[in-house]
C-alpha cells in the first residue's frame, strides 16, 4: 500500500459519509462526484486505466449532470406545486 | 349369503335408479325451466355421469375428479336460484372435499392405493368427517336445511333425494365392517332431524329436515356393519330418494299454486291438485313406514339389522313415532284439514286452480308413487333389482298393521288434542350470517397481520441485513 493510497482510502470513507450526511441534495451530488474522482485515482494507482476512465467520465461527469437535472426538476415541480396551492 | 353386501350389485342398483330419478326430474323440469332448460339438462347429464364414476371407480383420483364434478354441477344448479346460496354451498362442500383430500393422501400414505375397506380407526374417522361434511352428518349438517329449502324444486329434489347419498355409498365401500361412531351419529340424526321437521312451518324446510332424519337411518344401517343393515341402507337410499324426489317435485307445484310454502296456507290443496296430493300422501306414508309402501320394508330391514347392537332397537319405535308426528302434522295442515272440515261445501264449490299442472309434471309424481307402491306390495322386486336373494325376514302382516295403526292413532290423537300443533311462523334458515362471520373474521385477522407486517419502508428493508446476519451467524455457530 503506497502512501498515497493510505491517504486516499480514508478520504474515500470520509467523503462517502459526507454524501449521506448532507441534507442538501445538491451538495450530496457534488460530493458524490468528488468521490468518483478519488476512486478513479485509486483505480489508476492499481493500474486499471480503463476502469478509471469510465469512472471519471460516467461517475463524476455524466451522472452528476443527470442528478443535477433531476434535482432541478424536483425543485421546479415543488415550486409550481406551491404556487398552485396558493392560487 | 356372504357377510357383507356385494358392492358391485349395489352400485348397479343405485345407478339404475339414479338414472330413473334423473329422468323423472328432467321430465318435471321441462316446464319449470323454460329459459335455461338445455343448460339444466346438460348439468343433469353430467351429474349422472359423475355419480356413476363415483360409485363405480376404485381409483382415488377418478373418485376425486367425479366427486368435485358433482360439487361443481350442484353448485351451478343452485346458482340458477340464488348466487349467494351457491357461494355458501360451494364453500362448505369445498371444505368437505379438502378434508377428504387429506384423508385420501393419508390413506395413500398408509398404503391404500385403491378404494378398499379401511382398517385404521383414525383413517375411518377422517373419512367420516370428510364424507360427512358433504353428505350432512349430524354436526356437519348445518348447511343442508338452508340449501335444500332455498334451491329450486327440481334442484332440491336432486340434492335431497339423490346427491346426499353419494357420501353414504362411499362410506359403505370404505367401512363394510361398520363404525360405532357412525352408528350413534345416525341414531341421533333421526331424532334431531325429526324434531326439527316437526317444528318447522315452511314446507321445504320440513322436507329438508326430514331428509336429515332419513339419512340417519342410512347412517345407522351402514354404521351397524350387519348385512341386513347394509342392505336396508342401500334400499333405503333408493326408496327415500324416490319418496323425497316425489315430495320435492310436488312441493314445487304447491309453491306455485299456493303462492308460498307456509304449510298453514295450503288451502283446499287436495281439490286443486289431486294427483300431487295423493303422491304427497304416499311419499309421507312411505317415510313413516306404512305397510304396503316401500319405506316400511327398508326400515324394517334396518331395524332388524341394528336392533341387537347396544340394545337400541326400542329407540327405533320412538324414531318412527317422531316421523309419524311430523308427517301427520304436515298432512293435517296441508291436505287433510280441508277435506275433514269443509268437505261438504268444497265439493259443491267450483275449484279454481291457478297453476294447472301439465302432463310432464304429473308423470314423475305418478311414476314415483307407483314405484313406492310396487315395492311396498311386492318387496321381492327390490331384491330382484338388487340381485340378492330375499334375506328372509318373516313379516307378519297383522301385528305390523296394528303397530302402524297404533302409531297413527297416537299421532292423530296428539294432533287432535292440540288442534294441529300450530307453531308461529319461523324464518327460513340461512347461512348468510355464517358466511358473513367467516369473511369478517378472516378480513380482521388478515388486516391485523398486514398492519403488523407492513411497517414503514425502512423497517421492511431492515429484514435484508437481518436475514444475512442470521444466515452468517448460523454458518459460524451451527
Amino acid at each position: 500500500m503506497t502512501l498515497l493510497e493510505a491517504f486516499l482510502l480514508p478520504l474515500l470513507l470520509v467523503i462517502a459519509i459526507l454524501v449521506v450526511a448532507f441534507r442538501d441534495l445538491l451538495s450530496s451530488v457534488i460530493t458524490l462526484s468528488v468521490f468518483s474522482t478519488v476512486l478513479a485515482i485509486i483505480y489508476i494507482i492499481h493500474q486499471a486505466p480503463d476502469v478509471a476512465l469510465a469512472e471519471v467520465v460516467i461517475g463524476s461527469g455524466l451522472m452528476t449532470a443527470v442528478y443535477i437535472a433531476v434535482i432541478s426538476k424536483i425543485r421546479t415541480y415543488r415550486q409550481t406545486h406551491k404556487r398552485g396551492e396558493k392560487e | 349369503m356372504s357377510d357383507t353386501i356385494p358392492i358391485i350389485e349395489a352400485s348397479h342398483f343405485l345407478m339404475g335408479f339414479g338414472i330413473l330419478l334423473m329422468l323423472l326430474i328432467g321430465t318435471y323440469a321441462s316446464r319449470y325451466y323454460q329459459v335455461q332448460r338445455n343448460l339444466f339438462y346438460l348439468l343433469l347429464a353430467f351429474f349422472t355421469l359423475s355419480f356413476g364414476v363415483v360409485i363405480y371407480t376404485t381409483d382415488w383420483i377418478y373418485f376425486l375428479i367425479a366427486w368435485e364434478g358433482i360439487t361443481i354441477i350442484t353448485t351451478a344448479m343452485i346458482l340458477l336460484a340464488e348466487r349467494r346460496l351457491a357461494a355458501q354451498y360451494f364453500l362448505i362442500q369445498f371444505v368437505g372435499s379438502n378434508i377428504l383430500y387429506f384423508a385420501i393422501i393419508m390413506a395413500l400414505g398408509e398404503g391404500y392405493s385403491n378404494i378398499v375397506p379401511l382398517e385404521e380407526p383414525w383413517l375411518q374417522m377422517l373419512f367420516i368427517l370428510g364424507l360427512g361434511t358433504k353428505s350432512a352428518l349430524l354436526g356437519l349438517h348445518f348447511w343442508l336445511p338452508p340449501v335444500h329449502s332455498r334451491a329450486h324444486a327440481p334442484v332440491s329434489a336432486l340434492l335431497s333425494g339423490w346427491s346426499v347419498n353419494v357420501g353414504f355409498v362411499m362410506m359403505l365401500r370404505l367401512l363394510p365392517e361398520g363404525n360405532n361412531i357412525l352408528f350413534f351419529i345416525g341414531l341421533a340424526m333421526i331424532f334431531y332431524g325429526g324434531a326439527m321437521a316437526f317444528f318447522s312451518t315452511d314446507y321445504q324446510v320440513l322436507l329438508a329436515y326430514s331428509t336429515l332424519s332419513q339419512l340417519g337411518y342410512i347412517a345407522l344401517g351402514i354404521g351397524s356393519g350387519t348385512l341386513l343393515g347394509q342392505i336396508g341402507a342401500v334400499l333405503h337410499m333408493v326408496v327415500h330418494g324416490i319418496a323425497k324426489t316425489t315430495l320435492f317435485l310436488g312441493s314445487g307445484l304447491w309453491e306455485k299454486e299456493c303462492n308460498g310454502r307456509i304449510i298453514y296456507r295450503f288451502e283446499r290443496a287436495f281439490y286443486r291438485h289431486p294427483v300431487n296430493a295423493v303422491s304427497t300422501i304416499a311419499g309421507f306414508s312411505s317415510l313413516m313406514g306404512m305397510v304396503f309402501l316401500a319405506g316400511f320394508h327398508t326400515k324394517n330391514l334396518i331395524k332388524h339389522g341394528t336392533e341387537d347392537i347396544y340394545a337400541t332397537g326400542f329407540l327405533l319405535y320412538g324414531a318412527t313415532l317422531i316421523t309419524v308426528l311430523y308427517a301427520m302434522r304436515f298432512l293435517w295442515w296441508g291436505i287433510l284439514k280441508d277435506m275433514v272440515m269443509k268437505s261438504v261445501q268444497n265439493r259443491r264449490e267450483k275449484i279454481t286452480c291457478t297453476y294447472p299442472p301439465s302432463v310432464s309434471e304429473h308423470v314423475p309424481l305418478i311414476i314415483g308413487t307407483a314405484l313406492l307402491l310396487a315395492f311396498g306390495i311386492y318387496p321381492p322386486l327390490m331384491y330382484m333389482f338388487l340381485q340378492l336373494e330375499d334375506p328372509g325376514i318373516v313379516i307378519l302382516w297383522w301385528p305390523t298393521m296394528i303397530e302402524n295403526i297404533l302409531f297413527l292413532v297416537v299421532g292423530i290423537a296428539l294432533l287432535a288434542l292440540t288442534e294441529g300443533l300450530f307453531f308461529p311462523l319461523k324464518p327460513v334458515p340461512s347461512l348468510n350470517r355464517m358466511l358473513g362471520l367467516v369473511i369478517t373474521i378472516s378480513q380482521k385477522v388478515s388486516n391485523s397481520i398486514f398492519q403488523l407486517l407492513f411497517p414503514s419502508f425502512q423497517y421492511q428493508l431492515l429484514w435484508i441485513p437481518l436475514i444475512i446476519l442470521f444466515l452468517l451467524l448460523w454458518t459460524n455457530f451451527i
Partner: protein
Amino acid sequence: MKVFLTAIILAFTGGALFVNLGSIPDSFLLSHTASRFYREAVVTETGALNTVSAILYDFRAFDSLGESTVIFATVSGIVLLLSRKTLPVSSAGLSLIVKRTFGILTPFVFLLSVYIILHGHLSPGGGFQGGVLLAVITIIFCIIYGSSFDLSRYPPQRKTLIETTGALLFLGVGIIGIALTGSFLGNPSAWRGVPGTLPSAGSIVPINLGVGLKVGAGLAIIFYSMIQKTLKRQ
C-alpha cells in the same frame, strides 16, 4: 430509535461479513484458469494490445452485448417515463463568453471521444468510455446553448437512429462472425492485421464503434429527456 436499530443491525452484519470475507485466498485455487490464459495469450489470440478491451469485446463479447442492451433498455424506459406531449421550450443558454469557449472546446471533446472509441483495442478506453464522452456533447449543448439548439442540431430522432445503428452494428458484427468463423461474435482471423496498428484486432474495432454509438446516443437521449421539461420553466 429507528436509526439506532438500523445502525446496530448494519454494524453487526458488517462485522460478520468482515470476519467471513477475511478468508479469501490470495491466488486462484485453480491453476489453469481463464484469467491466467487471458494474461498470457491475449495479443496472440486476438491481436488487441489492450487486454481489457480484448476480454470485453472478444472473449466476453456477449456480456458486452448484454450490458449495452441494459443501457438500451434503460434509455427506452426513461424515454417512456419522461415522454410528454408538450414540446420543450429552450432557455437562452449561458453568456457569450462561455458559448464561445465551448464552441472552441466541443470539437476537441468530439475528437477525444472518437479517438477513445477507435483506439479501444490499443489504449485504455473503448466503446463505453468514448460513448459517454459523446454524450457529454449533448450536455454541453443543452446547458451552454439551450436545449432548442440541441434539438435543432441533434434531434431526438437522429439520436434514436444513431443508437439503433450502434446496436444493430454490434449484432451485425456478431452475425458476420457466424458467417466467417462459425460462431456468434467470433473474431475473424482475416481481420486481425498487425497487432499495434489501428486497423487490427479484428471485430473488436467495429464492436467498439457500435457500443460507442449506442452508449453515446443512449445517454444523450436520457439527458435530453430529463432536461427538456426543466428548461421550459425558466
